[in-house]
């Protein structure tokens, strides 16, 4: 296979990878996007084989390795519960990181195979590239392992912070640079190995101060690192597939973590460097039971893809005066052919008929408003319950715990819906002053915000 043809194919696979990411811009095209990714990978692997062309027995081993690894990967992918997604991705990252390190080592050991010179006399530029690749790969590897352990719960999710942490990291980083410099000037093996070792250490130290809540950002950042590592190796191997894809993954991962930080209202640098300021907040989090909290986009997505939604208004809607926004949100949902009803609990709010006043003000048609008895059986056939500023009136403790102050009150069985969205500002209790265990359920997503603000944001997402 000619070098030109090879380069063209690598270009094609790079473009396919771009299309893969692009596909995710909307759920409709997302699956096609994934297929593009697969195709790109197949092309890249195939032409690589073809370019080497020595279909000896070794080839069989490689194939076996490929299939073996593939089966393991597939097995993991099928077996893993969806909730373990973040740690899975972290685990996978560590593999990429390690692979990058190994490729770099291999090139370092046998530079002739890659046209990079001979051992002890490797081309300067290649040497720099491969050590950067190896270092970044090693950081990715050990960092991902820590992230994995934290998410898996094997290591405590709370940040580990000690004095001078940032200085040590800085020192390690600088020493890597110094070592690369020495490696280039002396071409001594040992420097190379030290670079890798220190990088492993740095990876660990970079991640341990980061709290569990920030892990998704970290994972995306590690993703970015693995991209840069691949790009580094790509330069070494003069392989444009690696360069394109590495740069793509590198920059998209970095941007993604930035976007996620913005979404969570956290400072990007604090998260990446770990432990700056954010530490106390994290400590408090650790003591609480875990809740799943989402944003307006998640809520919009869930409702847009539902066929029926029940709105459960409560006192918080009244406080936020969110009734008009709510009505508008419902109008938007209705345009998507989603069936909407309102479930009004007899004591929702702070005065008899409180919700009715507000819903009437927002011109909600009377025939969409149901009282508890009329609608309580419908929750189990409903996709989403959108609980906006209500709390006590959904609390199942009223049915189960005779000691509870609200025992015996009929409640709206929102938990029977496929998903429950709770819009409120915090985990604080309602009028009765008791905790609501629904907040911690599997099928609950908390939307922490002022009810009006959140509803408006959901409208925005629904429209975009």
């Amino acid at each position, binding site marked *: 296979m000619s070098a030109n043809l090879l380069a063209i194919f690598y270009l094609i696979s790079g473009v396919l990878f771009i299309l893969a990411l692009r596909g995710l811009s909307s759920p409709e095209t997302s699956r096609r996007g994934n297929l593009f990714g697969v195709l790109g990978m197949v092309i890249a692997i195939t032409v690589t084989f073809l370019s080497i062309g020595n279909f000896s027995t070794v080839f069989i081993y490689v194939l076996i390795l490929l299939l073996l690894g593939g089966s393991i990967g597939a097995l993991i992918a099928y077996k893993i519960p969806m909730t373990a997604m973040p740690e899975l991705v972290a685990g996978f990252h560590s593999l990429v990181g390690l692979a990058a390190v190994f490729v770099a080592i291999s090139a370092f050991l046998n530079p002739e195979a890659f046209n990079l010179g001979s051992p002890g006399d490797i081309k300067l530029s290649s040497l720099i590239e491969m050590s950067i690749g190896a270092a970044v790969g090693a950081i990715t590897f050990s960092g991902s392992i820590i992230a994995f352990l934290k998410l898996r719960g094997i290591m405590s999710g709370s940040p580990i912070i000690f004095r001078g942490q940032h200085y040590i990291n800085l020192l390690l980083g600088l020493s890597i640079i110094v070592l690369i410099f020495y490696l280039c000037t002396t071409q001594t093996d040992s420097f190379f190995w030290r670079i890798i070792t220190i990088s492993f250490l740095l990876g660990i130290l970079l991640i341990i101060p980061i709290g569990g809540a920030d892990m998704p950002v970290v994972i995306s950042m590690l993703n970015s690192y693995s991209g840069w590592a691949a790009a580094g190796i790509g330069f070494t191997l003069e392989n444009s597939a690696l360069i394109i894809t590495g740069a793509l993954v590198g920059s998209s991962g970095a941007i993604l973590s930035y976007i996620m930080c913005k979404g969570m209202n956290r400072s990007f640098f604090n998260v990446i460097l770990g432990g700056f300021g954010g530490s106390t907040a994290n400590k408090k989090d650790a003591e609480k039971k875990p809740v799943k909290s989402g944003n307006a986009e998640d809520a919009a997505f869930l409702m847009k893809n539902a066929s029926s939604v029940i709105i459960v208004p409560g006192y918080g809607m009244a406080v936020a005066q969110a009734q008009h926004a709510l009505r508008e949100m419902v109008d938007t949902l209705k345009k998507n052919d989603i069936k909407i009803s309102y479930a*009004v*609990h*007899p*004591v*929702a709010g702070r005065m*008899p*008929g409180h*919700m*009715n*006043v507000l819903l*009437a003000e927002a*011109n909600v048609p*009377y025939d969409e*408003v149901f*009282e*508890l008895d009329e609608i309580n059986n419908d929750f189990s056939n409903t996709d989403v319950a959108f609980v906006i500023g209500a709390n006590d009136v959904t609390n199942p403790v009223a049915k189960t715990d005779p000691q509870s102050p609200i025992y015996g009150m009929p409640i709206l069985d929102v938990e029977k819906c496929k998903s429950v969205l709770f819009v409120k500002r915090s985990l604080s209790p309602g009028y009765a002053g008791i905790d609501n265990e629904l907040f911690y359920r599997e099928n609950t997503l908390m939307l922490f915000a002022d009810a009006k603000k959140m509803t408006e944001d959901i409208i925005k997402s629904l429209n975009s």
Partner: protein
Amino acid sequence: MNLGSVKENINLEKRISITPDIVKKYLNLKLNVFLEKNYGQHVGIQDKDYEDAGAQILQSKEDVIKKSNITLQVDFPDENLFQYLNENSSLIGLFDPVKNKSVINKIIKKKVNIFSLELLPRITRAQSMDVLSSQANLAGYRAVIETIYKFNKAVPMMMTAAGTIPAAKILIVGAGVAGLQAIATAKRLGAIVSATDVRSVAKEQVESLGGKFLTVDSNERLEGEGGYAKEASEEFKIKQKELLKINIAKSDIVICTALIPGKKAPRIVTEDMIDVMKPGSIIYDLAVSQGGNCAYSESDKTVDKNGVKIIGERNILNKIPITASNLYSKNLFSFVNNLLNKDKDKININREDEIILKTLLDKEI
């Protein structure tokens, strides 16, 4: 020039033609204002308030009328006062010329220019003088308040621990000025509101207030001149009847406002419809003085038919005399302002002006 007003017969008419605010406006036009003693006392306005505003209080009706070049009233002054009316003076009010031909003729004989504001053309320029609109609007509002007051249930929907109170269903017949304001008021209170009219443009207007429009399925065009309705054909009436029968049976409150200018009010709510209404329901017939839209309705009486109350009042505006007077007196002021010449120093009966031409009753009738 002098302008005056005497006390109405407050048993029949609580509105007044001049409020203290308006006195000032007349003074700005260099008109003197003369009022009878205790002119607004029945609505809580004291003579002192008028004097503070610059009006002059006279002891007797005669004194006022004798002095005045322009006399402003709601209804006719007492017949024995006619003798004191100055020749060429103007008398302005709501005189219902169709019913009061003889009285009017008497006044015309006295060479008095009598203007009746019901006759105002519905042109844009006359909007600020449009008494019918301003008063019908309040009547629509008040009709809802009246019925809700008499209604033995709560109107808005309330879902409470002790069960759900369903929203009351209110039907408005005739969606003119009064009907629309009735719709708005009923909607505000949380009722389920529907309305019907013969004019097809009314549909959009009703919906613009959040009400439901009951459309009579017909392709007759019943819009007449000036936005008023024409009389409907028999076929239309039958269709309307079918539609209403179903809807009235479901209604808790019905407010009738349908009118056709110069004709007897159409009879829309019939006996058989009332028969199927729930006991406790209420019908308010705002059209009662023009003959009524509803069977059984009688002026100033509340008729009870199997628990259905049918209320008819000749003058619902007596119930909100202050607001009604505020608007009425402003309408009159706009009218007087238009009646004066450019220098505002004399009356100028300009028959080129449609507003003056149409309202002036100068031929004996």
